[in-house]
């Protein structure tokens, strides 16, 4: 099974990298850019074939390692088996 985990800083947590990217886009002439947030995408291939099992394993992976839930949210997307 393949899954994609997206990790983003929680809203309300200052994202200086996103801000810097937004400023750079403005300098490039994209004057309509209002807000940019930067995150991470982690793609995982693993043996589990059961969707429900996979989802609960992925949630555990996120809680234990992939995301720091003090500052980050995560979203799990199961792509295919």
């Amino acid at each position, binding site marked *: 099974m393949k899954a994609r985990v997206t990790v983003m800083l929680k809203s309300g947590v200052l994202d*200086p990298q996103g801000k810097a990217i937004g400023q750079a886009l403005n300098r490039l002439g994209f004057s309509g850019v209002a807000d940019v947030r930067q995150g991470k995408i982690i793609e995982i291939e693993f043996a589990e074939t059961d969707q429900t099992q996979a989802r609960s394993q992925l949630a555990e992976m996120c809680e234990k390692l*992939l995301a720091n839930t003090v500052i980050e949210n995560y979203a799990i997307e199961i792509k295919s088996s």
Partner: protein
Amino acid sequence: MKAAVVVFPGSNREHDVAAALERASGQAPKLVWHGEASLDDDYDLIVLPGGFSYGDYLRCGAMAAHSPITREIIHKANNGTPVLGICNGFQILTETGLLPGALMRNASLKFASRYVRMRVEAANTMFTSRYKPGQELVVPVAHGDGNYFADDATLDELEGEGRVAFRYVANDNPNGASRDIAGIFNAKRNVLGLMPHPENATDPLLGSTDGKPLFDSLVSALS
């Protein structure tokens, strides 16, 4: 005082802190490689040094927080063994959950490598007894991710319980840390994490000796 300095791949201040500990206590600490499944001895103090463990992959300190030896450090810390985490060591301690909050990218996005002024906020602990309350110190910082973050409830709790160890002096906050926090204790005050490097302020040749009392405090409490 029998101290262990835990070395991860990418640690780089282990010899600095080992030298500071040896100068203060007269006893060289043991450098322990992170791959050891257990700490071979009963140590009076465990130190997590500065550096870039695991190349800061994923998040600073995230990989080291799951290193085999770290499980044992968490266990010992919960049983009262004193633990000092400096810079990357502080990042590792927050990733393990031994200390609350997280250390984020510096608000300036720039690596901060300079001397800062910070104030001793709590002088009644084994780490800080040789300081005067409110004493102002000059110590170096060297980090790109030292921006201490915690939610307001956690920050209020830290302040209310006197668990802010050190605070950057107003206008000298190098990283945007919430409420100018440079270092914090756990609830039992046997775990201290801080971003500045007291070990690099222990000799006049280094430009400051303001970090020395921290090691002297530990020696007087633990020897």
